[in-house]
């Protein structure tokens, strides 16, 4: 809800200012926006479809089963991969992570899951590639995955 309020009020203010200053330029902004939106439509649809599929197949229950209460390196890798390929709202993800932690998963596993979940977006990749290019997307997500594993390792050692 906060998101909508923020974006729409920002848009309202900017639009009024823009209209006051120049109708022509405002019209041009609409044109630019429409073109960009049309261009992104296929990748937006793809992202929606993939989000639906991953969330429909990988339910919180399935994830708990996969990550489980097992300790060890393999659980951490599995958690990192699941985090990378899913897009779970934080209101679902953090309670899930908390309950996994209490039921015996290690800090390393949980931080791997959380960090790849937020840093790596396989699901949103079609959209990222469309707007920012393949090179940028592969580098950002690849490096993000590595960094997430390092972060998980350090957190496991400290906490």
């Amino acid at each position, binding site marked *: 809800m*906060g*998101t*909508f309020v*923020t*974006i*729409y009020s*920002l*848009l309202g203010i*900017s*639009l009024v200012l*823009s209209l006051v200053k120049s109708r022509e*330029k*405002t019209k*041009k*902004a609409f*044109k*630019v*926006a429409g*073109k*960009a*939106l049309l*261009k*992104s439509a*296929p990748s*937006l*649809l*793809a*992202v*929606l*479809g993939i*989000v*639906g*599929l991953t*969330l*429909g*197949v990988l*339910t919180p229950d399935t994830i708990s089963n996969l990550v489980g209460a097992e300790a060890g390196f393999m659980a951490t890798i599995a958690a990192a991969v699941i985090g990378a390929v899913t897009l779970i709202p*934080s209101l679902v993800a*953090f*309670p899930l*992570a*908390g309950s996994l932690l209490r039921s015996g998963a290690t800090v390393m596993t949980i931080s791997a899951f*959380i*960090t790849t979940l*937020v*840093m790596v*977006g396989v699901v*949103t990749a079609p*959209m990222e590639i469309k*707007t*920012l*290019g393949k*090179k*940028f997307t592969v*580098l*950002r997500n690849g*490096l993000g995955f590595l*960094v997430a594993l390092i972060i998980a390792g*350090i957190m496991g050692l400290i*906490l």
Partner: protein
Amino acid sequence: MMEMIKKFRLPILIGFIYVVLALFVPIAASRSTKVLWDYFKEMAMIMPPVFLLMGLMEVWVPKNEIQKWLGSGAGIRGGVISFVLGTLPTGPLYVAFPMTAALLRKGASITNMILFLGSWAALKIPQLMIEIKFLGIPFTALRFVLTLAGLIAMGFIMETALGHRSVDKWLPPEDEEAGNGMKGKMKI
């Protein structure tokens, strides 16, 4: 017609997967469809105003302003601005991709944009609140510090890998006429 199919081949393929899923695992398919519908409503509300804001930025904000505040010459100040902008409660990450592309075109540095995207994705204030509630302050604080350090490192690595060439060399073109899946043929 072929153009359209080519453009939409990924959504069409995903549609097929839904059909297959519906035939074999109907429960998962109905869950997926519900999620799809929820996210569709969210996107339909968010994307048009976001793109309009970008259009306004495109038209009104001069290139040298962005360069001055977020370019590679902006130093630590540029990094701090990118980080703060990212942590504001502004919605899902896919909103940030087109914004980042627009900012890069206007002269923002790669390091700053990695910080912007990264803090948007991983260090958002409302998200941190939820994290503290369920995983505690030590976990959240440590992840915050390590993620920030990791993002800065990622920024420098990507700046080295991509930054030596001009943005047009790797960023997809803004208007799609040139890139309608005909790229190979048009070049000849």
